[in-house]
């Protein structure tokens, strides 16, 4: 056997061994929400996605308990009826709260439950602005929208939504049209809350408690958040009109909380949801979303073992378009209390980072510590014009320091092929 082939096989076995002995963390379902303030990009909110995936319990029998009336309603039938309607207008609102900051994304559009596609205009409270999104199967097309509603020339195509709002709201990997599928699962208690008139339509409001174990013990172990009760509003025809749910987590996890609302109306409305023409599609992300104009500094993707700790994937990212903020993310298996970026040749301390999170460290297997510092345009220019070696000194709670060597890279955006 060829030498290289043997080495590759050994790599596979070695990695497997590391996993068995816990050297490489096992896959967790919900680990973190990455948030970049100022850069107007919110990482995939898999927390909400998973809530959606866990689905809403289905009512079982009529129960009476403590005077609270429970009504038998088959939510699966509600979902079926709603899906049978074929299409609907939808409106979504997603709010993410993390480390004291709150981000809200709203979207309005249409969903086709039959063909599993959706089209939405999303709006963000961040710098992101407005974007139009078309989701067809596995593919998402998105483009920036100007204030007048005029679209950017090109649609950005990706397999999963990149846009903050889309990612956050539909990080489930699907789109609103397949979201309804989640409203089916294990029976649990559902309470009839009352009646509400929504936009002139009489509905019955139900509340259900989500049960994480519905997913199975393996996944439940990795959960680090709590599911809030789910609220649904069903009209007299058995169609779903509104859904609300949310997740929250302990402050120490740094996962924040999220709340999601979806409203449906105009069932059966004719829709036109189609992929944009190929000549209008590109795979370069728009500038506002961390594409051209964002300078990537540092060499991410490298695992280094220094001293007793482990520092992975250090990177420093600056949004050149909105350079009021620089973030250094150090994924470390041990607590980090801060970091200093030092210009090697001169010894000058460029930035001193303090932890974002109030308690300053994270315990256990959560390998995230993000620190941030305000910077200016001049700082950005200095960093990107002269690629030089910088050192990131990471401070530990115990007072130990570890050094991570970073190479500052300033590169222009060039698409690359993937070797075909």
């Amino acid at each position, binding site marked *: 056997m060829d030498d290289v082939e043997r080495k590759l096989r050994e*790599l596979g076995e070695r990695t497997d061994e590391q*996993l068995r002995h816990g050297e490489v*963390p096992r896959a967790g379902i919900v680990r973190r929400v990455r948030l970049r303030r100022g850069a107007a990009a919110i990482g995939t909110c*898999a927390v909400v996605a998973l809530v959606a995936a866990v689905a809403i319990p289905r009512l079982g029998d009529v129960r009476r308990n403590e005077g609270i009336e429970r009504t038998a309603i088959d939510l699966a039938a509600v979902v079926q009826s709603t899906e049978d309607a074929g299409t609907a207008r939808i409106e979504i609102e997603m709010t993410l709260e993390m480390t004291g900051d709150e981000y809200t994304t709203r979207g309005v559009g249409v969903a086709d439950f039959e063909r599993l596609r959706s089209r939405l205009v999303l709006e963000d409270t961040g710098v992101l602005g407005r974007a139009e999104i078309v989701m067809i199967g596995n593919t998402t097309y998105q483009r920036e929208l100007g204030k007048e509603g005029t679209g950017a020339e090109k649609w950005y195509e*990706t397999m999963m939504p990149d846009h903050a709002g889309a990612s956050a709201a539909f990080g489930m990997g699907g789109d609103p049209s397949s979201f309804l*599928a989640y409203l089916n699962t294990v029976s649990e208690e559902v309470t009839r809350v009352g009646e509400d008139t929504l936009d002139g339509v009489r509905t019955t409001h139900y509340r259900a408690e989500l049960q994480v174990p519905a997913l199975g013990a*393996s996944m439940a172990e990795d959960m680090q958040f709590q599911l809030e009760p789910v609220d649904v509003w069903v009209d007299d025809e058995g169609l779903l009109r509104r859904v609300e749910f949310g997740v929250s987590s302990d402050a120490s996890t740094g996962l924040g909380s999220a709340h999601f609302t979806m409203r449906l109306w105009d069932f059966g409305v004719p829709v036109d949801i189609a992929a944009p023409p190929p000549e209008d599609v590109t795979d370069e992300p728009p500038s506002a979303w961390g594409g051209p104009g964002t300078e990537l500094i540092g060499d991410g993707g490298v*695992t280094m073992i220094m001293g007793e700790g482990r520092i992975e994937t250090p990177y420093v990212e600056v949004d050149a378009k909105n350079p009021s903020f620089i973030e250094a993310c150090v994924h470390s298996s041990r607590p980090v209390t801060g970091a200093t970026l030092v210009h090697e040749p001169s010894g000058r301390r460029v930035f001193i980072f303090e932890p974002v999170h109030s308690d300053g460290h994270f315990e256990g297997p959560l390998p995230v510590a993000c620190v941030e510092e305000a910077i200016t345009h001049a700082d950005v220019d200095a960093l990107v014009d002269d690629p030089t070696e910088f050192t990131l000194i990471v401070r530990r709670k115990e007072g130990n320091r570890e050094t991570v060597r970073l190479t500052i890279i300033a590169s222009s955006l060039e698409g690359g092929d993937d*070797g075909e």
Partner: protein
Amino acid sequence: METRRLYAAVDDLYRDHGRAAFRLAYLLTGSRAQAEDLVQDAFVRILARVRHVREPETLRAYLTQTIVNLAKNEYRRAGRLRSFLSSGRDIAPPTTELPDLAGRDEVHAQLLRLPLRQRAALVLRYCEDRSEAEVADALGTSPKAVRSLVGRGLEAIRTRDGEGRDG
């Protein structure tokens, strides 16, 4: 209920193949953090589509495909970094400061320099010992294309190995 069976199948998938999925993602990205995100996203996507899965037996293959696709997405987004690396600038890998580490992860580092599809082909074919047909399935291509990708990937690594020894 059909859906419940499918959710149970996904849970089984997570329990039985979650670690393997992480290994694949880790070999493809070289980063634990990215691998975690990838696996997380992959399972979320699977849960999203579970109702449209016809046979639970196909879930494992779908998991592999999804991880490769998500890694490809990440790879495309990191295109800026890649173009810098390919411009020939010399970046001293930090790992060379620790001899044992360099020896241990050298082939992984070489893998990470390859374009994503070549990398995926090599990881699946050799690190994971999959058949050509399975690799083709995971990459959404033909066995012939897989052979080509594997060949080019191996050649790229051998060439660099040769340069390293001479340099």
